[in-house]
């Protein structure tokens, strides 16, 4: 509780300074930075006409679908890479070369292959979040104390059982950390993708509002993204803590 209050101090100060500089003194003209009041009014009208909720749902569903696809591919593959040196040798070069390519660079190809809309957004999110999950999972598997694996073998587990019942849970804290990082990147990718190849979602909201000089609505869109990110961060951090044996 005390932590929550402390964390709100600086945002409160920022809002006060912001209000003073815009509404009360007019030092900063409203076309550069809209006043807190303008932002609140924009928030109210975007909420009332349903646009904010619709765009949030659009963005969220893209993020979640793309993220789940990435996790379904990255977690098993990461376990395999961490488990088997042979698999790692086969894949390390190709992963090493694909990983540094910014997901945004794939947008033209995504549009060519999947057209405008959900398909290409999912692809971009996938490209962005698959690597952090993969690397974190493989790393987690490699760090497992050998004594757990040897215990499983001496207790009669075969390889598959050992991977399912020992390797996976032992690497789970690292996997969750990978998912947390991957989710953050997924959100950034979605918004970037929406700004280029989409006609809905929070990225699209920000872009259209900016182009109509409605900077108050743009800030509403930006804050909505921040709130989504914060919520996911909170969920994953809670999961991490629960797994801290």
């Amino acid at each position, binding site marked *: 509780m005390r932590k929550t209050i402390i964390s709100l101090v600086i945002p409160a100060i920022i809002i006060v300074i912001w209000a003073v500089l815009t509404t009360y003194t007019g030092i900063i003209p409203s076309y550069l930075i809209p006043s807190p009041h303008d932002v609140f009014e924009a928030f109210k009208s975007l909420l009332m006409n349903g646009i904010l909720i619709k765009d949030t749902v659009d963005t969220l569903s893209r993020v979640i679908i793309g993220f789940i696809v990435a996790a379904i591919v990255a977690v098993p593959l990461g376990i395999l890479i961490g488990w088997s040196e042979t698999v790692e040798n086969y894949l390390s070069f190709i992963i090493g070369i694909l990983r540094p390519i910014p997901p945004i660079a794939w947008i033209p190809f995504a549009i060519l292959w999947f057209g405008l809309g959900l398909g290409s957004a999912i692809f971009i999110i996938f490209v962005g979040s698959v690597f952090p999950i993969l690397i974190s999972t493989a790393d987690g598997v490699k760090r497992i*104390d050998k*004594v*757990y694996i*040897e*215990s*499983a*073998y*001496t*207790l*009669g*587990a*075969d390889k598959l*059982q050992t991977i399912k*019942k*020992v390797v996976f*849970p*032992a690497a*789970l804290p690292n996997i969750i950390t990978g998912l947390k990082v991957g989710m953050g990147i997924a959100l950034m990718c979605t918004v970037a993708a929406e700004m280029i190849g989409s006609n809905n979602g929070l990225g699209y909201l920000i872009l259209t509002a900016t182009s109509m000089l409605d900077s108050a609505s743009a800030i509403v869109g930006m804050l909505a993204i921040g709130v989504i990110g914060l919520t996911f961060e909170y969920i994953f951090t809670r999961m991490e803590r629960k*797994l801290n*044996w």
Partner: protein
Amino acid sequence: MVFKIKKVNKNFQNKTMEMEILKNIDLTIEDGEFLVLLGPSGCGKTTLLRMIAGLDFPSSGTITDNDVPVLNPSPERGFVFQQYSLFPWRTVLDNVAFGLEVKGIDAEERYEKAKNYIEMVGLSAFIESYPNQLSGGMKQRVAIARALVNEPDSLLMDEPFAALDVLSRHKLQKEIIQIWQQETKTIIFVTHNVDEAVFLADRILVFSERPGRIIQTLKIEQERMRDRTSEEYLDIKRKITGLLETNQKF
């Protein structure tokens, strides 16, 4: 007999050199015997135990368990590690039930059986605890229960009490003797502690420093529980300590 170890040599290879770990080990371990492998650290006694378990393999020679070559780990040969090896994400109950779970035994039966073994090591009050809530001695008790639940013919123990304080160590030594008498298992126990060896063993194999060879075999006939202060007990300890010291190179 249970284990036959014939002409076993073990070398470790690293980038620059080959190191001899064990040299020419010949050994038969009888059914129901409490055998202690005693020696200075680095003498290869743990490596020998791991090879008997199937966690490691000889460079030459053969190891058989009831005439079957040991090629991989098996629940028939329970293993208790020196390090704490309980799965930290599982409760005591689920740790002990692990061996039955991978065998496909249904939950009700495996929990009932696991509880019996947890009771045997005196931890019934802790079945829902996680390993990080237990002391070192309790963790090793759970590890013993976890190995026993598979009803192995033999129990291989790699310095299981090395990290414990003297009082807990003595307590666990008594408990392992009780379990051994009650369950009639073959136990192979690795230690560098002379007192522990003399307290536990039917037979002690004393190893030299690397490369490890068996320099002496001692049978101990004294009745259990052994009195650590008896003249006979102290004599054996003195003899072994002298033997280890005269074979010390550095």
